[in-house]
């Protein structure tokens, strides 16, 4: 940390020292560049309209076990990636949509879907994403991603979909 501040301080001193030259004034207008850590270029959001379009970043869906809202290792890894992205793009807000498979009681599944969405939200919050950027909604078993009544289909329906929305 110390080194970092020394560097910044030096930069400041240099900038001040040469503030009178024309070249430096040009330099100053350029923003301090963000590091490129294998992150795709940010997509500019259009100026605020009545319905601002959502940023075009895609997030992977998080899957769960039957009657469970615990994140598994794969889910955590995917959220860790998402957390990095979200720290770099503070203008992106997310809607976390919790879903269940077709088995079991609709009312209980609505609550379970919300627990899943909440689990993802809490994890992202702990990754440093502000709560104000994260909204949740549960669809229970009402909106399956795939049809079919076998374990393969059920497994793909027990999920939280992460949808970027305009803030």
């Amino acid at each position: 940390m110390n080194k970092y501040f020394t560097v910044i301080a030096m930069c400041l001193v240099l900038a001040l020292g040469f503030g009178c030259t024309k070249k430096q004034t040009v330099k100053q207008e350029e923003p301090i560049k963000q590091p490129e850590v294998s992150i795709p270029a940010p997509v500019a959001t259009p100026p605020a309209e009545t319905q601002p379009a959502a940023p075009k970043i895609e997030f992977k869906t998080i899957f769960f076990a039957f009657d469970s809202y615990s994140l598994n290792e794969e889910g955590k890894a995917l959220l860790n990636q998402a957390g990095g992205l979200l720290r770099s793009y503070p203008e992106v807000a997310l809607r976390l949509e919790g879903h269940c498979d077709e088995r079991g009681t609709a009312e209980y599944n609505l609550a379970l879907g919300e627990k899943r969405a909440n689990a993802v939200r809490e994890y992202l919050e702990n990754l440093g994403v502000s709560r104000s950027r994260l909204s949740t909604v549960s669809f229970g078993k009402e909106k399956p991603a795939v049809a079919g009544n076998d374990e393969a289909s059920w497994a793909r329906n027990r999920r939280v979909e992460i949808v970027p929305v305009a803030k």
Partner: protein
Amino acid sequence: MKIKYVLLILLSTILCQNVFGRADVYLKLSTSERRQLELGIAPLQAQDAKDHPEAIVNAQKMLEIIGDDLAFSLYFKLVYPPSLLEGYGLKKGRLDIGAWQMLGARQVLIPELKQEKKKVILKLSVFDLGIQRQVFSKDFEPDGSRAAAHAASDLIIKNLSGEDGVSSTKIAFSLKSGKNKELMLADYDGGGLRALTNFNSINISPDWQPGGGALAFVSFYRNRTDIVSLNLASGQTAIISQTEGLNTSPAWSPDGKSLALTLSKDGNAEIYLLSPETKELRRLTNSWAIDCSPSWSPNGRELVFNSDRPGSPQLYIMDSEGANIRRLTYQGGYNTSPSWSPRGDKIAFVSRIDGRFQVCTIDITGDNFVQLTYEGDNEDPSWSPDGLHLCFSSSRTGSHQIWRMHWDGSAQQAITNNGGSYMPAWGPVQ
């Protein structure tokens, strides 16, 4: 080879015994717990209405519905004569008492079409063979309508048993159409089907207001859960609850003054009591776990609800202040969808048994866990207002239909045939 055959025969005898054994139990339950009246049904007498063939057809249609109603009511054991020829069981125009007594009837329902002035009327009367007197008589218009037939059934039930019949009650349910689910209304036997909503969205969890004038339900019309009320007479809708997060599982209290519901505005699914008039909202549960699906005891003092606080969804009972919470179910790892019988003694619910979902009942004391369904997935049980029957959704035929049965699991029959039917709610006697 021979040994194999012997084994097969042995096996099939064992299997048969089992099947009959179960049927026997049903019979015992239905008959031993409830005394049924042996009611003879005489063939329609229509000499008077020879010039009105349509009246005869209509009357026959109504009698068929009445017969089904009376048989399903559980108050009667219907006795039909061996011949349906007109005049059977009559001697010189009068009831042949000896013939009906031989058949085991104690009372006989006599339907007659009579010409009165220029009108044809359907006269239904009941003769008691013991006291040898007419105990019921009423004229009906033979218009062939289901409503008139159901009304006649309930009148007969009331007069002969003293109890309120459920023949005129309705069942509301949720019907899938494309990506949406709209609310439907049908007679308790599936007749007279009509659509209640056209929201172009998912609409589920209908719950009847005690008077039967309105339904509360969960609507996704804003692409999230809101609780909406629908006035059945005017077709008007009103928003009941739109808090942040879940607004689900509405359940009107028996006095109609408050609505129990599930909200997650304080972090996770908890049960609240809302007074729609004063807008007062009171929180009943306080747990890190899911609490949902409340159902009222008939005296309106307690609620059975679903909670996964023991690590799996189980049923609990609390009073309407949220105090005195105690666990009801311990069998299996998934018990949901409780519905408290209007008779007070039993709670119907869904239990996951061998990976499938089955309708079961349990006494309010926690004793007497009984599985009522065995084929496919069977969910969302709802009691008839007299507590003698249950409706539920079943996937046993390959598509989800609404079914009904008696309280002990006997006489299971589908009342819908269009598939994609879920979450039935049996309406009150009106």
